[in-house]
């Protein structure tokens, strides 16, 4: 099962993910169509400030999702095809028990129906083999769509390389500072 992962170091707070999310959840699914729609389409990902960093917060589609357990109407369910946690708007009574138990603030409110609003991982896109809109829109690959095991494997290899470098006495070069690192160091004096 593929998940959306975030590399906080690479997030520049450009909010391209927010715009792409709203467009994907619009009627026209085009930027120039979406900006003229009423009601205006809503984003399900929120780029929030975090110390000198920024972080796109969205639903993590937890395996043991408390929002599903908390919903009194069975409106919050797991999609059998995509595995995503999704809202059935017809069943949702707008009590926001789901928002209360969510540890990530990933559930907001639909301006039009006053029901729960959250990331659905773009089922229309997944159906045709495309990654979620936010992932595709991210210009720095801070958002990636991949298997948990692949992410873990990549990190294991990186950890192993660091150990090997240390043991072999090779100089362990600190990763070269990017412009964004410089900016963060200035802001975080």
């Amino acid at each position, binding site marked *: 099962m593929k998940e959306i992962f975030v590399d906080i170091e*690479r*997030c*520049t*707070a*450009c*909010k391209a993910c927010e715009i792409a999310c709203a467009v994907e959840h619009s009627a026209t699914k085009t930027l120039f169509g979406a900006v003229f729609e009423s009601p205006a389409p809503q984003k399900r990902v929120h*780029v*929030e*400030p*975090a110390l000198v*960093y*920024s972080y796109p917060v969205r639903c993590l589609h937890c395996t043991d999702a408390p929002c599903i357990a908390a919903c009194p109407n069975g409106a919050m369910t797991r999609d059998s095809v995509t595995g995503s946690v999704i809202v059935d708007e017809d069943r949702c009574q707008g009590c926001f028990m789901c928002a209360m138990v969510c540890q990530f603030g990933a559930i907001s409110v639909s301006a039009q129906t006053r029901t729960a609003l959250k990331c659905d991982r773009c089922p229309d896109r997944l159906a045709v083999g495309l990654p979620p809109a936010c992932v595709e829109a991210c*210009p*720095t*690959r801070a958002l990636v769509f991949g298997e948990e095991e692949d992410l873990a494997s990549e990190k294991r290899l990186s950890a192993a390389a660091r150990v090997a470098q240390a043991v072999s006495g090779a100089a362990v070069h600190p990763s*070269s500072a*990017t*412009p*964004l690192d*410089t*900016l963060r160091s*200035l*802001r975080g*004096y």
Partner: protein
Amino acid sequence: MTRETMDVATEALYERACDCGIETGLDRLEAQQPQCGFGQLGTCCRICYMGPCRIDPFATDGSSRGVCGADANVIVTRNLLREATGGAASHVGHARHVALTLRDAMNGRAPYAIVDRAKLLSVATGLGIAVEGKADTDIAKEVVDKALEDYGRQDGEPANWVAFRTPPKELEMWKELGLVVSNVHNEIEEAMHRTSGGNDADPVNLLLGTLRMGIADGVGLAMATDLQDIMFGTPQVRGIEANVGVLDANKVNLAMHGHNPVLSEKIVEWSIRLDDEARAAGAEGMNVVGVCCTGNELTMRHGVPMAGHNLQSELLLVTGAVDAMAVDVQCIWPGTVKVAECFDTKIITTEANVKIPGAMHIPFEAANADEAAEKIVRTAIEAFVARKGKEVSIPQVKASGLAGFSVEAIVDVLAKVDPDNPLKPVIDNIVAGNIYGVVAFAGCPNPKIRASEMTEIMAKELLANNVLVVTTGCTAHILAQAGLMSPEATEKYAGDGLKAVLTALGGAAGLDGPLPPVWHMGSCVDNSRIVNLLAALAGTLGVKLSQLPVAGSAPELVQEKAVSIGSWLLALGLTVHTAPVLHVLGSPVATKVLTEDLVGITGGRAYVEYDPKKAAAGLLADIATKRAALGI
């Protein structure tokens, strides 16, 4: 922004805004967080319609390029030049407006006059105009011709104000570097042309273009100051008050906001003429107060109270006590109209190119200056009548001090010590180390760093280390509000050497106490006064500006105008501190040239530091290096 650490007046006004449910810039700044990294790094290009393109800051090998092939260096330096162009356009436009007003006045078509004949003669002489046997009006017309020539000449010769106001060594250096500006409008055209799609792609060439744009900006600054002094008088040292407490609930409070004294001078005149009407309307009189740079113009020449800096332009309205805020150009926040709607306050725009929906518009041109000014003052009186008896909340916070430190006023004071060589006392004390150096503060209050008291703490650190601080623009408001323009501040904050010098000068000037440790030299265009002062010091010593133990700082940079002013100072060879960092970090070339290589070109250097104490220490280290090189 943590509200707890803001100054008392700002804090009180912000609290009131929150209580009244009024949104201000501080709220909007919070709502804008986090802000886009591409914008901050300068690596977003919207110049053509193959884009917009953005350069991945993590592709540090330069592999990330725009559709046309422009890399981060090209995009950043093009954007920087366009920022400087926006700033220079503001200043040369301001100066042209003043020149045209002087022209119309001399032709009997605008109600303005020559107020400072001595300045007229000195400017005319400096421009190479023969003054003997000529009527003042004719001399002034020739000065105007020289001014307008800088907007039209096509002969490539140095602009009149470049030749007039640039120190000889720097002018020579600019000639060698190919930086001499001839026609300021051509510079703006050239810059927009070369940064348009498919033109200049050499980042170093583009950075040199930014230096040229700084020099064009300097023409605007110097010309505006000179012509304004001729028409409105050269400032002399006088007592002033600063902060929101200068508003008076029982008077008609008319706040002047913007930049051009052509408007605000007329408002002061008509406020005096219509004072009886204000009293007849139940007020205790007219109370004109200044905001932002036109506030500085008025306080320098008339001692008009300084009500607030740019960040306070909305917050002042939250008092409910501002009857009208009349504005001209630059730094006018659209948000002011929304705040004004909560009260009886009228926002009055006056310029054809600065209109805001929801504001009242009273067209102001030199020819109809009296009619428009009269109408603006009457509008304020009418708003007072509507406001009378309603609750207002004016934090009783204000500081007093001295302003009006034009170069002429400074030389007048110094001449009392040494009439033959007025600058000698300053130079002797710089050599002796009693004045360790001079740092010029300019620019704005930036809400991103205002809560850190960046400007105040930097200034206090420098003063304690015997560095004289001179200031213009909104940093002048900040430093006046902090009490740093008072003689008492010399006792409290200046190091022993600086204190002794300022005490001696204060005595010579016939003051009860010392001169203040922070000298208010005017508005943003009056950064020209600072450069004139440094040029006089450098000329007397026979050194380049880059060798002087001096530096500039925009401690809370906001506007494109600060970028162009800073570019002028870099072209002149000064070290220029800024916070926040310019939008250049995305380009390794721009970052290196501005912070390192430029030292070997003009002597100038850009320096970034957000921590006020570290920034002061950085500038002190820079001054120490320059002193050592001079052998003092």
